[in-house]
Structure formats: structure tokens, C-alpha cells
């Protein structure tokens, strides 16, 4: 192998490594933004890093909010800070949100209607927790 070829090969390798690192960093930024209320442009990056399909990126935060809401409600109802009737209602809204989330993500495609309905039920859940 000629010296020039080796130099080119090393340069290509370094370039590839730099591009890979940059993509990873961009992906990390995209994931971090996705955790909050991300602008649409950054959600695309989250798809590429957090998820293998659009459904994961679209619904992961919603599932997570559901888990935390149920955990918070369980603590509050045991502490007497949440009435049993409200906890029962919350459980119902959370179940409806879960069903819509499951329906929103079948066959690897996002059902925006189901996702919107899930968010409505999530809002009801948060309203019950927030009213304490």
C-alpha cells in the first residue's frame, strides 16, 4: 500500500469517527429535548436514537407520565392526601389513556387520533392529582 493511500485511509477513518460522534451527540440532544416539550424538528432526532420506530418516540413519554401518575396517586391515597373516590377515578382515566396508547402504536405506525385521546385522558389524570 502506498503512503498516500494510507494517509487517505486514516483521514477517512477519522472523518467517519467524527461524523459518528457528532451524530451520537445530536441524538443525545434530541433525546433530551424529547423528554420535555420538544420542538418538532428535534423529535426526529429522538426517533433516530431512542427508538427503532416512530411509535416509541411518540408514546414513551406518555407511558412514563402514566406510570408516575399512578405511583404518585398510590402514595397520596395511602397518605390520605387523595380521596379514594378520586383515586378510583384516576385509575379509570389512566386505564383509558393506557388503552389509547396501546392502540396508538400497532403495526409500527402512530395513530394520531388515539394518541390525542390518550393525551386527553392524561390531562384528566393530572387534573385529579393537581387538584389535591
Amino acid at each position: 500500500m502506498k503512503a498516500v493511500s494510507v494517509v487517505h485511509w486514516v483521514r477517512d477513518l477519522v472523518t467517519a469517527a467524527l461524523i459518528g460522534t457528532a451524530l451520537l451527540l445530536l441524538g443525545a440532544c434530541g433525546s433530551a429535548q424529547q423528554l420535555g416539550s420538544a420542538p418538532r424538528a428535534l423529535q426526529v432526532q429522538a426517533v433516530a436514537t431512542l427508538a427503532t420506530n416512530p411509535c416509541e418516540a411518540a408514546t414513551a413519554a406518555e407511558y412514563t407520565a402514566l406510570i408516575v401518575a399512578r405511583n404518585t396517586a398510590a402514595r397520596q391515597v395511602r397518605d390520605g392526601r387523595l380521596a379514594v373516590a378520586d383515586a378510583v377515578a384516576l385509575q379509570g382515566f389512566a386505564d383509558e389513556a393506557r388503552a389509547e396508547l396501546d392502540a396508538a402504536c400497532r403495526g409500527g405506525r402512530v395513530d394520531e387520533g388515539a394518541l390525542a385521546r390518550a393525551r386527553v385522558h392524561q390531562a384528566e389524570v393530572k387534573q385529579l392529582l393537581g387538584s389535591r
Partner: protein
Amino acid sequence: MNIQEAEALASALYKAIDQARAEGRTQVEVLPQLKAMDDVARAELQAAIDAVSKAG
């Protein structure tokens, strides 16, 4: 997303990564972990409701 939610998502991600490694996969699937965690959270909330209802 608040800190609690971020922690829950991180937990699900680490579990999904561990599972993918254990199964020799390179693709990480986080939704099954999140669904399982929600199932547990649902059961815990129901247990709390039942316990407080019974005590009251």
C-alpha cells in the same frame, strides 16, 4: 417531563438495554418495559385503593 418521569424513563431504558444485551440483540425496545412498569404501577394503585377502602 419532570424529574420523576425522567427517572422512570431512564429506569425503563436501562432495563430495556439489559434485556437486549441478555438476548443478544442490538435493538433496544423500551415500550415493553414501560408497559410492564405501568402494569406494576396500576396494581400498586389498586392495592392502595383497596387497602384504604378496607380500612375506612
